[in-house]
């Protein structure tokens, strides 16, 4: 009896401790987000006031209206740039990954093993190793300072091909044979029999490609030189270095850039978290 109650007691302490740790972790994780939102609602004088405040005394939208009305910051244009690059890269990656994944999963041809090895070797080559020659190639192709320069070098994704191949290997061969019986061309089989089965892995690959592209910084920093062609992360660093004396503006600009990606995360949270461990997203 005594032992029993002691077990309950220690179980209770354990549970309290566990939730305390989880709660501390939660506040540490969320505090920077809360902080940036609250700071973006402060007046320029309040944000540099000493001692500082956490909650704005009188919340104001003025930082946001300043950004929206700044003729040097046509936000629509920068959102277009980032979206264009991200959507183009997602579309191309999904197409090439599913098509090549299908070929590797279901076709036999000479050189298949070698070609697969060549593609998988991409995973081993870190981007920083090839970025200098890649830049020189883009100069030759006259793609420097264009949005295409952010899309064209990233049209083949080795991880995507691998992932699609794994998935397509699970689709019964009978389906493809039936398609051939009906006289469908090879591309038609891919298009109307294989592709519709791939919605789950394509969605996963698409979300991760979108997020990686949306947050990409180093390559756009190298390729883009004209202000009007900047993507949102480039705009953000440019904006912050031009408004160093007004941190509330930088905080508002950060919130504007964060909103789309956080919305996407909230929408697809289950899929993103469940697949993060397996897709090698990073």
């Amino acid at each position, binding site marked *: 009896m005594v032992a029993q109650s002691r077990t309950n007691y220690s179980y209770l302490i354990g549970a309290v401790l566990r939730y305390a740790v*989880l709660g501390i*972790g939660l506040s540490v*994780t*969320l*505090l*920077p*987000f809360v*902080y*940036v939102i609250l700071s973006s609602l402060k007046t320029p004088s309040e944000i*540099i006031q*000493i001692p*500082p405040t*956490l909650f704005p005394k009188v919340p104001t939208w003025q930082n946001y209206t300043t950004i929206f009305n700044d003729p040097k910051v046509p936000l629509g244009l920068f959102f277009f740039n980032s979206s264009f690059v991200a959507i183009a890269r997602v579309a191309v990656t999904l197409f090439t990954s599913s098509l*090549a994944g299908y*070929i590797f999963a279901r*076709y*036999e*041809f000479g050189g298949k093993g070698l*070609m697969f090895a*060549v593609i998988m070797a*991409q995973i081993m*080559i*870190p981007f*920083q*190793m*090839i*970025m*200098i*020659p890649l*830049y*020189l*190639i883009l100069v030759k192709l006259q793609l420097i300072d264009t949005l295409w320069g952010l899309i*064209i*070098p990233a*049209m*083949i994704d080795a991880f995507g091909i691998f992932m699609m191949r794994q998935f397509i290997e699970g689709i019964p061969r009978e389906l493809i044979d039936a398609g051939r019986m009906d006289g469908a061309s*090879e591309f038609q089989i891919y298009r109307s029999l294989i592709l519709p089965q791939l919605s789950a892995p394509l969605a996963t690959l698409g979300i991760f490609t979108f997020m990686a592209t*949306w*947050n990409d*910084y*180093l390559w756009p920093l*190298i390729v883009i030189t004209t202000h009007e062609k900047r993507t*949102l*992360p480039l705009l*953000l*660093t440019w904006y*912050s270095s031009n408004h160093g004396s007004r*941190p509330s503006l930088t*905080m508002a600009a*950060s919130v504007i*850039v*964060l909103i789309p*990606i*956080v919305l996407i*995360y909230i929408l697809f*949270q289950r899929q993103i*978290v469940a697949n*993060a*461990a397996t897709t090698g997203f*990073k």
Partner: protein
Amino acid sequence: MASPGSVRQSQRRFAYSVMTPIMLYLMLFSLIPLIWAIILGFFDYSPARVGGTLFGLGDSNPFIGIKNYVDLFSDSQPATVFRKSVVNTFLFTFLIVPLNLAITLPLAIIIERSHTRVKGFFRAVYFLPTVTSAVAVALIWGAIYNPQAGLLSDLIRTIGLTPPKAWLSDPQAFVMGIPLAMLALIVAHLWQDFGYNLVIFIAALQGIPQNLRDAAKVDGANEQQMFWYVTLPLLQPTLLFVCVMTILSSLQMFILAQVMTKGGPREQTQTILMSIYQNAFRYQNMGWAAAMSFVLFGIIMVFTLLQFRFLRSDWEY
């Protein structure tokens, strides 16, 4: 119906018509750049000079043998900065890995034991920083570290202590011999990054069969023994994978340092990738920068191969 032979031929034709452009593409955007990068490391190459006909090499961009590599050890200022960036990057990496594990492993065990609904909620929130733009993270943490009006200094003052006079810009500030600015970057990096390893650990813990734990319990193992003798050994492959992935990403640290400290104060947070970027694209000294990137490539390769070596064994239970 077409004969089996012609069917197979049309299949082959389809396969090659897809794979040929992909292979040509990879040649142009991966293989040639890789070889080119290695060759560049042996030339004094700047895109500002018109060189020979082949890739602009030769003439005013002369072949200099291994001088680029030898120069990495010279007394010149950029070489000193590069060597400092190598030391910083290693220090950075070997602080990040244990700190990351010390946070993510216990947290994963706690979350894994919670109720399903609670588990999903905490996992989702903890993963949020990993999907946010690193540039925004750098700016937000830059504001948190503001010495006068920032959140951190204010918190420290609230509990009655004196905050350091600057978190990111005081070259004299050290904690146990580690520059304060680097520790500040590490904290921001851990905050953004820990959700990734956490999710991997949770997935691995869920993969441990319940009957193994039950068996240990029947044998009278307590919680601690369970962790050290059951959970941890079974997690070993995951631990290795997580370590290597964290090492690889830390070795390529760029955005946080570039945006928050620009490598300062006095190059105390300069990373290898920043050195490569600056020498290649700011000073147009691409041959030398290519040599640097080959050094980083070599370091990364060592860890990648270690991963393959340790992860080859398949675990079954």
